[in-house]
């Protein structure tokens, strides 16, 4: 097959290395033309300063600095293994559960560093909820699933009301209201995921972290959850990790692109409004990733 003449796309004058080499050398060959670290001018709930993370000796995140605006959806995108899920789990200290991890830098939630010595991770997780990639409802009834978080946190109010409210917020109430006693696992994948969202909502957090929440779901269930996210963002701040570019483009207000360097440590390459990042990315690597020219 004849060599594809793509000269029409690549001007000889512009300083752009051949994208065919892009996969081999991901080390920044030059400083990005524009400051990739964008702090949105909106009030931020989370603020990361030089966050670095190690699994044992392997550095997984390197000097990530960014802020997450309140009541917005921020998406973290990047190729597999770039560290975006690790970054997400740093935000509610779920990485504490793994042996041999080390965190450096500051993760400020409402002005407090959540990794400070006197901060209790349980308190952190009350306010920062998480939804996982594979729906993981407890092997209990729907009611118990929704009520558990509130119960262990000492909720004293009307539990029936709280369960109903949470299930409504998660757009699941109408589908399950006739039988709240059925086992959560009997629901379909998409319903299970919404149940997991409902139980996170029942704890009344500020922030909801979502780690590829739709990757195990069919397209219709995915779209329902995306609609749900757009509704929830009015009350909550949502940070979502996704490997689906179109999903990030559909659902988020801000998008951050993370990429691992040769040593495997993830860096924040570019961060901006979703509109800007997907129409006019500033960094060549962002452009290449978004247009699918590598990995």
């Amino acid at each position, binding site marked *: 097959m004849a060599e594809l003449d793509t000269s029409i796309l690549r001007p000889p004058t512009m300083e752009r290395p051949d994208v065919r080499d892009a996969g081999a050398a991901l080390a920044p060959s030059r400083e990005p033309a524009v400051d990739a670290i964008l702090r949105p001018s909106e009030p931020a709930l989370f603020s990361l300063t030089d966050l670095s993370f190690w699994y044992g000796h392997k550095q997984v995140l390197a000097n990530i600095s960014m802020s997450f605006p309140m009541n917005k959806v921020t998406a973290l995108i990047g190729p597999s293994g770039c560290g975006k899920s690790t970054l997400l789990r740093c935000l*509610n200290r*779920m990485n504490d*559960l793994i*042996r041999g991890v080390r965190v450096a830098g500051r993760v400020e939630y409402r002005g407090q560093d959540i990794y400070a010595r006197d901060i209790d991770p*349980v*308190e952190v*997780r*009350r*306010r920062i*909820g*998480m939804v*996982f990639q*594979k729906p*993981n*409802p*407890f*092997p209990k009834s729907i009611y118990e699933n929704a009520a*558990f*978080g509130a119960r*262990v*946190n000492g909720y004293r109010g009307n539990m029936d009301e709280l369960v109903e409210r949470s299930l409504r917020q998660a757009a699941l109430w109408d589908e399950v209201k006739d039988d709240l006693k059925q*086992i959560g696992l009997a629901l379909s994948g998409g319903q299970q995921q919404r149940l*997991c969202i409902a*139980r*996170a909502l029942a*704890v009344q957090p500020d922030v909801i972290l979502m780690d590829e929440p739709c990757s195990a779901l069919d397209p219709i269930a995915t779209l329902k959850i995306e609609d749900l996210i757009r509704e929830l963002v009015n009350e909550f701040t949502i940070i979502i990790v996704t490997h689906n570019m179109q999903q990030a483009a559909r659902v988020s207000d801000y998008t951050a692109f993370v990429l691992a360097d040769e040593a495997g440590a993830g860096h924040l390459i570019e961060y901006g409004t979703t509109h800007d990042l997907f129409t006019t990315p500033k960094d060549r690597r962002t452009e290449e990733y978004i247009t699918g020219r590598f990995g």
Partner: protein
Amino acid sequence: MAIADSQATVLRASGAVARRQAVSRAAGWVLLAASLIGVAILIFLAYDTVREGASRLSWRFVTNYPSRFADQAGLRSSILGSAWVMGLTVVVAFPVAIGTAIWIEEFAPKNALLTVIKLNLANLAGVPSIIYGILGLAIFARYFGLGPSIMTGALTLSLMIIPMTVIAAEEAIRQVPQSIRDGSLALGASHWQTVRHHVLPAALPGIMTGVILAVARAAGETAALIMVGAFTFIAFDNTSPFEDFTTVPVQIYNWTIRPQADFRHNAAAAIIVLMVAVLSLNLLAAVIRERFRRD
């Protein structure tokens, strides 16, 4: 329109494929034969025992005390003794074993000390039961002055079954998927709340299976209890854990070594009773396992 080859596509096994299939089928038969050997032996033993002892089986046999006369000797005191010892063993061993397993799997820091402890437990599970008998004699019977009592027997058997129960419980706890723990912790539950409300209930079927199997093991234990002093003539009903006792397996041993041929029938009949009990326990364990697996 279906496509037919002008040269007929050969789909029936031939050549190398036929040979491989033949080998596979032969392997199936060989493995079946191997399994049947074990079953055949069991059937033979059962038949032989039933032939020997069926004539002795009667309600009187179960309700009579032991006696010098074979046709009047019965299992009354040994059944009661077994019941007492098993009951007490479960009460002592169960909490200790489960607690140890929970600590090892959930709370213990994963360091060298833990490895040493786990290694020791694995070793202890393989220690011959007569060693436990000697230990029980020295510590419980002599040093603590409990003598050849039910309490001594129970404590000795507890020591014996704790290691294997811990290992079974550990395995059951390990089987609980991490996603359940993650889900609970992400809601702001403490570690103990997570263990109590999610890990333990999920691990319970596996733990129960382990406990029942350990109890079945202990029910058939002979050497250790003989060391502790159960080889004795008991012609009364046990009403306190500090009394002397005997158990069914010990009674069987007792009858087997008598010179009078008649006592062999008693022994066989008692074996039938014991086997029925042990088989029932094993069946119970299997039923529990299956019931919870289906969920």
